[in-house]
């Protein structure tokens, strides 16, 4: 048991190391931090640029492998280096991680719960109005990329705010800077900022989960054990919720690991478009600013998050399924 766990963790570490290293190498060879300086007016003297790049370990004239060694030595000590602006990557990302985490957790919570609920109900009322309606809606949502969805939400919110003549939905940032008022006002302000990004993030999730859960549910609806439950005298609805839904939840937990990667990408778009200063926003900015160290650090975090999600979904499965738990 312990041996197995250790092997598995070791494999995870190896995956993270290789993934991060690959990302670093790729970023270091594809991105060109020198161009940041060349575009300045007046351009700084080459010697100054070189010195600055050397200091940041970003000089493209230093062999890639040498830069990699210096970078990985830093990473081993827990230091992801400096951004192009000279700030510490660690501090910068730590500040932003909280923002992203808030967005992801709320989105995930809303998305998975609503998705499972919608899917289960659609399966129970197969071919009914609700089923047709949600199936149609989820098809349309699945055809809308997050970037478009986010923009449509913003356009809709602006239109709505104009219509009622008040700023109901706020479309930029996490809070209103310099807002006066007590805690309730602060919370309300946050909520108004949160609604649209959460929708943008979780609508897709709801659509995916509802389709998946509906199929799982349909698979168990005809299962023998549901028939047994009804044969002992349970009403159809009781048999469905107590026996079918409970069993159909198990594979949904496994599915969670697969959707997590998509969720991370979705967060990136949502943050960028709604102006939340999270990791996703930094990711896109860092590519524009040729920020090699930040790109590598974010890759590392993303890899870590995906593996954490995989582990979480395994654990969830173990909690839900006695066959896994005992076995």
């Amino acid at each position, binding site marked *: 048991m312990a041996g197995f766990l250790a092997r598995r963790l070791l494999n995870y570490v190896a995956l993270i190391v290789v993934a991060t290293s690959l990302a670093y190498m790729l970023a270091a060879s594809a991105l060109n931090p020198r161009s940041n300086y060349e575009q300045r007016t007046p351009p700084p003297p080459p010697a100054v640029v070189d010195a600055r790049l050397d200091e940041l370990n970003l000089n493209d004239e230093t062999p890639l492998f040498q830069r990699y060694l210096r970078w990985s030595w830093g990473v081993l000590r827990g230091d992801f280096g400096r951004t192009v602006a000279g700030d510490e990557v660690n501090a910068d990302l730590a500040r932003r991680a909280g923002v992203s985490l808030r967005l992801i957790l709320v989105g995930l919570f809303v998305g998975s719960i609503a998705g499972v609920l919608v899917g289960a109900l659609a399966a129970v009322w197969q071919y009914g109005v609700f089923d047709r309606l949600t199936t149609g809606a989820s098809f349309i949502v699945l055809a809308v*990329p997050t970037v478009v969805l986010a923009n449509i939400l913003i356009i809709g919110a602006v239109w709505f705010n104009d219509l009622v003549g008040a700023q109901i939905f706020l479309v930029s940032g996490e809070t209103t800077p310099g807002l006066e008022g007590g805690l309730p006002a602060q919370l309300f302000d946050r909520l108004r900022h949160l609604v649209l990004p959460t929708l943008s993030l979780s609508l897709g999730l709801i659509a995916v989960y509802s389709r998946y859960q509906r199929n799982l549910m349909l698979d168990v609806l005809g299962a023998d054990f549901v028939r047994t439950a009804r044969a002992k005298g349970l009403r159809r609805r009781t048999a469905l919720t107590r026996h079918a839904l409970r069993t159909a939840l198990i594979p949904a937990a496994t599915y969670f690991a697969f959707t997590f990667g998509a969720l991370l990408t979705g967060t990136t778009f949502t943050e960028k478009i709604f102006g939340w200063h999270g990791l996703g926003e930094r990711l896109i900015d860092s590519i524009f600013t040729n920020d090699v160290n930040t790109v590598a650090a974010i890759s590392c975090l993303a890899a870590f998050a995906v593996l954490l999600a995989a582990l979480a979904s395994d654990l969830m499965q173990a909690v839900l399924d006695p066959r896994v738990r005992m076995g």
Partner: protein
Amino acid sequence: MTLPEEQLTEQRSAVAEAGVRVPSRGRVVAGRFFGSGWGRAGFALLAAVFLLAFAGPLVSPWSYTDKDFTAFMAPPSAAHWFGTLQTGADVFAVTMRGMQKSLVVGLLAALVSTALAAVIGAFAGYFLGWTDRMLTWVTDLLLVLPAFLILAVMSPMFAGGQWPLFVFMLALFLWMVTSKVVRGMTVSLKEREFILAARFMGVSPTRIIFRHVIPNLSSLLVVDATLNVSAAILTETSLSYFGFGIQPPDVSLGTLIADGAKTASYAPWTFWFAAGLLIVTVLAVNMIGDALRDALDPGSRRSR
């Protein structure tokens, strides 16, 4: 729940016994596909989208590189069916160009990724052992790598007509989940008796994989290829939206949507035509995928 599959095959065999010509599998699937509302609608939509994207530019007076210096940001009119952009470019022409790109990129990436998924998954599942461990590790690695970030970082390499490389990289990040499914199904298929029979008569493993394993996963693969088309189009659009995908001077729906979003509130035509056509395209592909799944695997009751 419908009739057990067994009874349907009995029915089929009874019909065959009676000397009636048994329709081939392809015809049966096509019949089921076009018999469903979703299948017909999806097919019609996609055909319309293709027709529009490839025949539309032929009848339009403007090419996507043309600029009309007499009309900047003009609303739709007889001269400019979808209006014009700030640069004077004809929205219809650039949107059609963008759709062409998206469709071609989507189709090719889906094809490549499904082929990758089939071969890698089948080999991992058939041989197990070290082959499996290695291939699974690579699959996991690609799952762990943030695809969007890698593609974005590589975006400068896609400039200057290097879009086939872009297609390949897109495909490289699309195949993993399908491959895991293929692997799982191969593991169980491997114990199926017709595979055992082939093994015990001395057929070589590679031959078994290509003759028995992959053909028997074709329903899954066809459906997945379809769904990968929409996934590829969506990824391409998102990348291009941020300027990481199709590089100027070429256009894609993503770049158009990005530009249009900024002006959407006062010039809706700059946003909604591109966004709308993108949604319709992906919707059509998804509908086809769904109807195909039903048609190929009537027992699964997957959707609808």
